[in-house]
């Protein structure tokens, strides 16, 4: 009951904000709306939900996890602008890679300060940055292949639910709550489905960056197993496998099931390797 009280206000707020911003799509041109409002809805909703969870955040924040609202807004602007303009694919990837590296450097400041040598730290940042870019490329490919408006939000919701569960099981209810807020923001964007509009590539930078940042925080600052983090980060990969079924809803169902498999394994591994908070 306490957990519900702790999680509900922030998630409801994130959901309402995302739904509110996406509702603008119902009054705006379809093409522009789903490209620009999707990332803005998720970024703004996550930022507000995050502040609901942790309270006011100073600048620069002492707790590096509190960079996430700022990063959410930056990624939302990046997603919205890349959806609204005709930036070349390589340029979008390059800009996102730079944003990801900057975000990782901010998030992992304590590791640079107390744990790693400078060289070691930058190797970590480069590897994790490459992984985030890879996740973005996978999600981008999925947005282009999606056959129903609900497809992308469904995959993202499955990943958010798994991330929430794995983080909570790994000793940090707080990080789990933040994953729940991200999931609620995605859920709020389902309003777009009322006009058969799916979330398109604009949401890729926001979702990739926020999910990765939560997993990175879970691994380095809580006790999230590396395997769980990797499985959750790359859970969308099976959805790229061509499914040879005739109906578009049945093929979506199979792909959603395929995404759910690594997510379920990740949560199970987190459950097995971390002590439950039942003291």
């Amino acid at each position, binding site marked *: 009951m306490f957990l519900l009280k702790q999680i509900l206000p922030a998630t409801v707020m994130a959901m309402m904000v995302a739904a509110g911003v996406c509702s603008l799509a119902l009054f705006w041109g379809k093409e522009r709306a789903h490209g620009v409002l999707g990332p803005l809805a998720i970024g703004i909703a996550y930022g507000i939900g995050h502040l609901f969870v942790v309270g006011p955040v100073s600048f620069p924040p*002492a707790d590096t996890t509190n960079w996430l609202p700022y990063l959410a807004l930056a990624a939302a602007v990046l997603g919205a602008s890349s959806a609204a303009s005709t930036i070349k694919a390589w340029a979008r990837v390059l800009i996102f890679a730079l944003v990801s590296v900057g975000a990782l450097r901010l998030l992992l400041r304590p590791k640079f300060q107390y744990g790693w040598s400078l060289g070691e730290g930058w190797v970590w940042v480069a590897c994790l940055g490459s992984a985030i870019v890879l996740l973005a490329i996978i999600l981008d490919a999925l947005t282009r292949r999606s056959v129903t408006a609900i497809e992308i939000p469904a995959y993202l919701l499955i990943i958010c639910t798994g991330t929430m569960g794995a983080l909570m099981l790994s*000793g940090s209810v707080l990080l789990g709550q933040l994953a729940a807020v991200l999931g609620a923001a995605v859920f709020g964007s389902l309003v777009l489905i009322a006009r058969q509009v799916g979330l398109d590539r604009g949401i890729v930078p926001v979702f990739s960056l926020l999910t990765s940042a939560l997993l990175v925080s879970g691994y380095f600052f809580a006790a999230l197993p590396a395997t769980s983090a990797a499985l959750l980060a790359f859970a969308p990969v099976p959805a790229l496998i061509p499914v040879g079924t005739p109906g578009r809803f049945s093929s979506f169902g199979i792909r959603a099931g395929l995404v759910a498999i690594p997510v379920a394994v990740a949560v199970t591994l987190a459950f097995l390797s971390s002590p439950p908070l039942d003291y």
Partner: protein
Amino acid sequence: MKSFKLILIAILSSLGLTAYGGDTYKVDPVHSSVIFSIKHSGVTDFYGNFRQISGTVTFDAAADLSKSSMEFTVPVEALDTRNEKRDQHLKSPDFFNAAQFPTISFKSNKIEATGDTYKISGDLTLHGVTKPVTADFKKGAESKGQKGEIRNGGEARFRITRSDFDMKFMIGPLGDDVNIIVSVEGVKQ
């Protein structure tokens, strides 16, 4: 004549240092304790401690108290509440966030006598946030240790509000106020 002057300067300097700086003690972690208590479920307090503390105390009540100072550092990893699961949770990002903020530190900026006891004001850095706190300090007696070393110490008590230090998780089931006792024994340097 020149060497006599040098010796005289050295003696006067050392006297001056004693008079103005007081005696400096290095905290003996084996005989010092950091204990905290916090209300659970609104019922009663449970107690925990930190198994390590380091620091120095420069203190001379007979001389100028404004020259006295205290500095302590406590590693968060040394937290112990007699329950491994709870310790792990307390060190997580929900509470102390030990990976991001590995130490708790205190540095005094004012010590004043209040009858038999003292008020120590200073900055406490916890969870990456620095806030001023004031502790009541009761000085212990000076004594000689087994190796002939001079020992002294005392006990400080103060209360903080953890939400002031951005530690806001589970306020309700766990209290917001935390009582802290720092009992230090130092060896004269």
